[in-house]
């Protein structure tokens, strides 16, 4: 059951301890419970505890809870400036000049969390061009950002 979660974490070179006794899969969605919830829960719940993400068409879609958890650990991350934060939550990709700091992998193809200057997780993306090289181009592709909450509402 842990496999999709572990695979997803590995893209960020991240490790999180998730207690399997509290990890629950309901249809295609993953939740993390605790003792208090486990004591009272019935089978037919719609949502329970901390939502971690879902599988769709063989792909894992993380929740912002999971991304926040990854953000608190050692993992691939970039910190972006204010203007880039705003553009990113509007769904845009990231230019090299908007990046303030890089932690972890700089390699093309790696997944990175995108943090604002207060170290809050705004979403994640995929590195398109090695971050060591100077570039005027988009270097990180936006995969998911917190503006998604607004897009979900308008669906």
């Amino acid at each position, binding site marked *: 059951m842990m496999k999709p979660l572990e695979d997803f974490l590995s893209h960020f070179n991240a490790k999180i301890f998730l207690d399997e006794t509290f990890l629950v899969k309901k249809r295609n969605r993953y939740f*993390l419970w*605790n003792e*208090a*919830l486990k004591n*009272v*829960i*019935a089978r*037919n*719940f*719609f*949502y*329970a*505890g*901390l*939502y971690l993400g879902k599988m769709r068409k063989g792909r894992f879609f993380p*929740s*912002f*809870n999971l991304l*926040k958890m990854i953000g608190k650990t050692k993992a691939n991350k970039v910190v972006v400036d204010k203007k880039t*934060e*705003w553009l990113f*939550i509007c769904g845009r990709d990231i230019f090299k000049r908007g990046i303030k700091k890089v932690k972890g992998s700089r390699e093309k193809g790696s997944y990175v969390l995108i943090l*604002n200057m207060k170290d*809050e997780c*705004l979403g994640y993306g995929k590195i398109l061009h090695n971050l060591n090289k100077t570039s005027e181009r988009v270097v990180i592709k936006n995969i998911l950002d*917190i*503006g998604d*909450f*607004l897009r*979900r*509402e308008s669906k």
Partner: protein
Amino acid sequence: MSNKKFFEERYAKLGWKFKYVKPKQAIRINTMNIAEEKVVNRLEALKIKLEKVPFLEHGYWVHHSEFSLGATSEYLLGLYSIQEAAAQIPATLFTELKNKVVLDACAAPGGKTVQLADLMQNTGVIIALDVKKERLTAMANHLERCHVKNTIIYNLDARHASKLKLKFDCILLDVPCSGNFSTDKQWFRKRTIKDIERNAKLQREIMTEAAKILKDDGEMIYSTCSLEPEENELNINWAIENLNLKVAKIDCYGENTSTKIFGKQLDNQIENCRRIWPGKTQGFFVCKLKKVA
């Protein structure tokens, strides 16, 4: 007589002179996610003008904002919620919430569920019910955005809540109601006394079920955003007479309610309820119920 006139006359009999009001937009800081002053400073840096709501611990009125309050990073990160000031009152009336087992019986879209989780600092358990399946996704998104960890949502009619086989320390009954004109421009055009009576009956049924699953020393908060006594004082009077419940004193914004409604003398405990006429906030009614020992 026009519908509007009919209702205006009823309000006059209850001691309130009708006037149009537009409730101010308000926010509530999610202190489980961040220190309050940090968010306030950040919003002020975005040129959002805030005023602390004097009767709320974490509530602010928004006087001016150049952009939508529902689109800032701070909002999307779950640091605050948009919640009208009167609607922030009910959840704050429980004596103790941390580590308790709490029922939010009519919960979607989850404004008060998130507030309860915040007051509990994500401890204990909240069971959140709503009968309308289509409203549950919005509630789930709301919980995810605010990083709530202690809530279980069921698609369940509150009138069948005993199926959960649990007893609750605290029950919030933010019951479906007829609403009021201050948040709905069409209100006078569409509402009839029949609707109000239908809602009042549903509310009594929900209260009846909730009374069965409240612990002996538990607390139940009943709230509506209706101005109509059938859904408020008269229903609570019915609960006193039929459900072995008493109305406890509360200390919050609003007026003590009258024990005489449309000529009918009600139980004296009814004056412990609070009625909030539209003005600084939208219209609201709230009270705390406990079991008679």
